[in-house]
């Protein structure tokens, strides 16, 4: 038997609320399949299962908030004997605790289906403003949709929706504050900076893109990501976490990408095994990841498995980024804007495109010497873009 637990989706997560089970007792599940949706400070996350088998028991009800590590379900792994009788622990027919929740607004109780709750969360609809059309006034998915569709201009956006967004932002701000304060409190950061000549890389990319359709266009950010991923192979101590006073080097290179959200806040989901992906796949993956991050449909593995973070603030006009490491990771790479600068080669001056790359690293895990070599390796890789 395997336990399916509330995952930790980052150093800042202490608990999560089970929004919806996507599987029932007796259902077959395969490794990587989404079986639940969990509400966290970072939004609603789809949680994957990491074993093949059959759902034996669902232990937590939809709507329950439980600490990270709580067993949510029992999965009978392939080959093991079932417990008899396999029974539904969580009733799907009876009105569950999640159905009736105390509204923060004037003490009224809100009856809503889990799907309606999820949708309301996504659309920023306050359930106390929705008229339920189900049995006993229970709010259904359609009721939320109807409320969300009510014609309104931006200036007429209801107060409830603004409040819901504000609350979400507050929760996310708190989560970021907690992780960043921990980082600065616990991690002895050191910072290194280097300027990389991007001329060759951008010229190569321009040529490469002329043979592609718009849909398959590659952005320069992907070259930076790939260079970081490949460089990490020779510097595994930077692709690691620091936990229980020791360095844990990670086998897979899963690069967390700092993505700003439109409503404020920041999430760093990971591109898994970035070093193994060809540039077009990496581009597709990045596009998809940004889209899903901003629409609030990330998978748990993308949040839990990043081994290092890359942040690019160049488009905001920033020249150099001095990042704060996301614990328990031990390094963060920052890129600034691409600018035109003078390069001196063989005694001659020429204009070229450049970018400032920085490394913020944990001094418990590495020293500046290795960090410097790592930045030099990224630079070297970007001088041969065709090999990325």
């Amino acid at each position: 038997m395997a336990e399916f637990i509330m995952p930790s989706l980052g150093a800042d997560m202490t608990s999560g609320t089970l929004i919806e089970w996507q599987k029932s007792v007796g259902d077959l599940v395969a490794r990587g399949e989404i079986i639940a949706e969990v509400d966290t400070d970072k939004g609603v996350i789809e949680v994957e299962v990491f074993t093949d088998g059959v759902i034996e028991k669902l232990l937590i009800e939809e709507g329950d908030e439980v600490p990270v590590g709580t067993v949510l379900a029992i999965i009978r792994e392939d080959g093991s004997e079932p417990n008899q009788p396999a029974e539904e622990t969580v009733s799907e027919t009876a009105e569950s605790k999640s159905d009736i929740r105390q509204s923060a607004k004037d003490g009224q109780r809100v009856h809503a289906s889990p799907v309606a709750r999820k949708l309301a969360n996504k659309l920023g609809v306050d359930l106390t403003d929705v008229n339920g059309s189900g049995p006993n006034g229970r709010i259904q998915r359609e009721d939320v949709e109807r409320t969300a569709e009510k014609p309104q201009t931006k200036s007429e956006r209801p107060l409830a929706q603004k409040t819901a967004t504000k609350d979400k932002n507050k929760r996310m701000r708190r989560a970021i504050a907690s992780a960043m304060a921990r980082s600065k409190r616990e991690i002895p950061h050191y910072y290194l900076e280097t300027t990389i000549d991007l001329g060759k890389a951008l010229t190569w990319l321009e040529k490469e893109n002329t043979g592609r359709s718009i849909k398959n266009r590659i952005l320069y950010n992907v070259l930076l990501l790939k260079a970081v991923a490949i460089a990490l192979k020779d510097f595994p101590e930077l692709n690691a976490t620091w936990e229980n006073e020791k360095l844990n080097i990670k086998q897979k290179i899963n690069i967390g990408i700092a993505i700003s959200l439109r409503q404020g806040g920041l999430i760093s989901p990971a591109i898994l095994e970035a070093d193994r992906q060809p540039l077009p796949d990496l581009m597709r993956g990045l596009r998809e990841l940004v889209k899903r991050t901003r629409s609030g449909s990330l998978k748990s593995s993308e949040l839990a498995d990043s081994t290092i973070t890359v942040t690019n603030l160049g488009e905001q006009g920033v020249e150099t980024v001095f990042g704060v490491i996301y614990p328990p990771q031990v390094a963060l790479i920052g890129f600034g804007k691409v600018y035109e600068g003078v390069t001196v080669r063989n005694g001659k001056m020429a204009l070229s495109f450049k970018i400032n790359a920085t490394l913020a690293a944990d001094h418990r895990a590495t020293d500046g010497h290795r960090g410097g070599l790592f930045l030099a390796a990224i630079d070297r890789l970007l001088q041969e873009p065709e090999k990325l």
Partner: protein
Amino acid sequence: MTDKELKNRVLSILGEIAPEADLDSLRSDLDFREQIDIDSMDYLNFVIALDEEFQADIPETEYTRFTSLDSCIDQLKRLLAKSE
């Protein structure tokens, strides 16, 4: 398709990419990337969405020409006329 219809459809695509943006106050002759929060990934998604919505078959060489509402309308009119 009239300029107004084109503009409305372009604005609708932009609104999906930047739902928080106040598109009513957008100046049509200026680069919208400097007026609302649009990064390179958003811009790429915007051009891809234009390509799909209008079946315009936008050539890669014209990728950077869709940066203002006016330039979008001009470019789309030209591409649509060419495909007729």
